[in-house]
């Protein structure tokens, strides 16, 4: 996933991105979820955010195990995870344990990020991977309606 961020910056050097955003101030841009392209790029520029994405891409992980895996404090993990969820790159699920307790786990949603420059408009599109669990896929499907 960290490769995605490198790709974005290589294709769009800083000054070009500024130019494009300026152009787009008065135009509608297609942005996934409730997240602006600048927020998305800033988020992917963050090493902890990328570490959370790569760690949760193979298996869902709790905030505690993420904080160990990414060598980040628990508040840092929560802050990054919240921003990643807002941008639709990460999903939060509740895992229910036998004794009735439940805790949150995170799962990467990002499959591919495409940035397209088309007729003076910048399109940023987040393609999501389908969830592993059938119940999660069902929920995502129904919520997308």
């Amino acid at each position: 996933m960290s490769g995605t961020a490198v790709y974005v910056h290589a294709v769009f050097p800083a000054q070009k991105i500024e130019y494009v955003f300026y152009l787009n101030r008065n135009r509608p841009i297609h942005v996934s979820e409730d997240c602006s392209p600048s927020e998305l790029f800033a988020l992917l520029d963050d090493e902890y955010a990328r570490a959370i994405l790569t760690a949760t891409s193979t298996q869902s992980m709790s905030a505690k195990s993420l904080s160990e895996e990414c060598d980040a404090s628990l508040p840092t993990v929560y802050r990054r995870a919240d921003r990643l969820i807002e941008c639709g790159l990460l999903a939060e699920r509740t895992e229910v344990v036998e004794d009735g307790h439940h805790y949150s786990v995170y799962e990467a949603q990002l499959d591919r990020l495409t940035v397209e420059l088309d007729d003076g408009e910048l399109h940023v599109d987040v393609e999501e991977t389908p969830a592993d669990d059938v119940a999660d896929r069902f929920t995502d499907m129904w919520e997308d309606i």
Partner: protein
Amino acid sequence: MLLQFGVEQAYTDYLIHLAVTLIAMMLALYIVFQAFRGYRRNDSQRILFLAIGLALLTLAPFALSILGASLGNSLGLGPRLYTFYLPVASRLLEICGLGCILYSLFIRN
């Protein structure tokens, strides 16, 4: 001889009815169960109402039809049970189920 044939026929009819209803109920139960797990895991009100709606739409009428077939005679309501009470009760449950699904479509998270 003719009477005995009629009783046997009714018995196999009942068994076939029970078998297909149980198969349908198992499939419905699996789908409702996945929707309910989706609610537990994602804390989503929308999938919860879909689960309730699907349960009312499928499980409840199936259960009612099995109950009607097995307890029908002992209730003493006569043929009106099959021509009126059961179909109307099923339909009312289906209306509640469809209402839940409709409500789920209009919830904004």
